[in-house]
């Protein structure tokens, strides 16, 4: 019984990692109705920026907030410079641009920072750790929930959040109401990049920082975000935790480590077949 508990706790910890990146994916989806496959690499790159700042002498929290700010600005820039020109291209073409961004960021990070793993510090005091969940894993989970809460409040209760959701859902009508759609998209990218940067800085102390840090996590985050419903931040977090725990339990007690990913994915797709918009996603109804 103890073994099950430990696997569940470990699963929650890993699930927290997936949840944080899934949040960034949901964020960008809510702002642009696109899934940004380069989100993981953007988060990784931001974490390297933080690492460089810390190495240059900055304290952890100054580096943290500075990185979030830099990531925000970079996100806006990427939207304006890279994504804007292909705004009107077919959806799949934009996806290919994301993929291009992904490989560029991965390759440049490897070139500048090399592939040896780097440790990334954790700001959380030892006191908040419990048995089988390290202080950092607890802290990271907490931070993810705080970010989730902030996002929820932002989208639901602020005019800016509403404007962003409108711009993504119906650009034409939004323009008619006076919303600067272009800037909403840029803002969305900036925020998603910022959320991604937070995710990266929370993840790195657990998995170690290297250019390929986010590749596997993106996979799980994608599944988690869709499981929870691609337009629901809360769903993304729940999805992430579920995926983490599910995978651990499957690997330890059911099917073994070789096939746990396969079974987990089969189960997730199975759930989607029953609820095609995910747990908490809103069902899209379109007029014919």
């Amino acid at each position, binding site marked *: 019984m103890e073994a099950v508990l430990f696997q569940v706790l470990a699963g929650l910890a890993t699930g927290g990692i997936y949840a944080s990146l899934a949040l960034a994916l949901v964020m960008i989806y809510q702002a642009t109705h696109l899934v940004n496959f380069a989100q993981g690499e953007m988060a990784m790159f931001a974490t390297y920026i933080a690492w460089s700042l810390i190495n240059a002498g900055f304290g952890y929290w100054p580096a943290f907030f500075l990185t979030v700010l830099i990531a925000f600005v970079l996100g806006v820039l990427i939207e304006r410079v890279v994504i804007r020109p292909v705004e009107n291209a*077919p959806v799949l073409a934009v996806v290919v641009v994301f993929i*291009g961004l*992904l*490989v560029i960021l991965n390759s440049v990070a490897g070139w500048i920072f090399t592939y040896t793993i780097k440790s990334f510090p954790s700001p959380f005091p030892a006191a908040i750790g419990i048995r089988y969940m390290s202080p950092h894993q607890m802290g990271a989970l907490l931070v993810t929930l705080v970010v989730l809460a902030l996002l929820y409040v932002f989208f639901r209760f602020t005019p800016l959040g509403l404007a962003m959701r409108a711009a993504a859902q119906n650009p034409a009508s939004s323009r008619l109401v006076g919303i600067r759609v272009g800037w909403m998209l840029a803002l969305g990218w900036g925020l998603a990049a910022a959320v991604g940067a937070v995710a990266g800085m929370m993840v790195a102390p657990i998995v170690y920082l290297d250019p390929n840090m986010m590749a596997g996590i993106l*996979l799980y985050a994608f599944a988690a975000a869709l499981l929870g419903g691609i337009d629901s931040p809360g769903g993304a977090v729940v999805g992430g935790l579920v995926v983490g725990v599910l995978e651990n339990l499957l690997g330890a007690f059911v099917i073994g480590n070789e096939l746990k990913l396969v079974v987990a994915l089969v189960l997730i797709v199975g759930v989607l077949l029953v609820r095609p918009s995910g747990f908490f996603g809103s069902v899209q109804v379109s007029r014919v």
Partner: protein
Amino acid sequence: MSRKTVTVTILLLIALACVLPFVLKSYHTFQATLVLVYAIALLGLNILTGYNGQISLGHGAFYAIGAYCAAILMDQAGLPYWATIPIAAAVCLLVGFLFGLPALRLEGLYLALATFALAVSMPPILKSHLLEKWTGGVQGIVIVKPDPPAFLGAAGIKLNADQWLYFFSLAVAIVLFIVGWNLISGRIGRALVAIRDHHTAAEAMGIHTALYKSLAFGVSAMYTGVAGALGAIAVQFVAPDSFNVFLSITFLVGIVVGGLASLPGALYGALFIQFVPNIADELSKAAPWAVFGVFLIGFVYLMPTGVAGAVRTLRRRLGSGKLFPLSKEEALP
């Protein structure tokens, strides 16, 4: 351009393709064979994603199934290489169709995830100790390269293994392209495009959308599976980790750059995914992927509808009329 001009152009292209292996070095012929293989795979993906609008991030899995079919049949059952092609086709047709059935419930992103899951699952399944006896597990399977058939030698035509394999792949590619063209330009193709463009209207018009969508999956998987089998024979080696999710993403990149919903687009895309990474490697050893990424973004900027789309626009501007049965207006998603 009239029908006659089209036929002439295509015949010229085929003639050129036949001459190539005699003027190129063996290794270039090998590369050309790979281009043909990728073209078939991309055509398969295009049928599903380009013409039918069902996004698939998992075609690498069908490629893998085809490749392993060929490898296992040649290595363990001792089948000759040409016999593995129809078997791989049949297996992938079935698997694709079976996958397409539950996939009917999923749309857009969620379908993308399901296919993504398929792609991600392939390496672990191939490596699993449950199947190790057939798949060779992590070690993979080494295949012997087929020799040109005896009747050619008797007829006095001397070909080396690379050239023969090229011609074999060329023949398969031509057959599959003709079949594909027939499919697309006929009722089935129009039904697929109708489903893509307006699902509800298509159903209202009496098109059995469920059947067509699943069939599209099956046929698409079949094409890519045949490509996988040919690819395995050309490379003479299959290993689980080379069929990872990045292969599926490469195929998607290929059809977008080549041109969605376009037959020549499959060829352009194949040329891109075969040669541009090599070019990127020449340009930078330190960060070859970065150069590749720049190429990708550049291509999409310059030609958002793919090379085929750009060619179409060019030809239109040069005053040509309809070339293929589906005009630009109908074919674009």
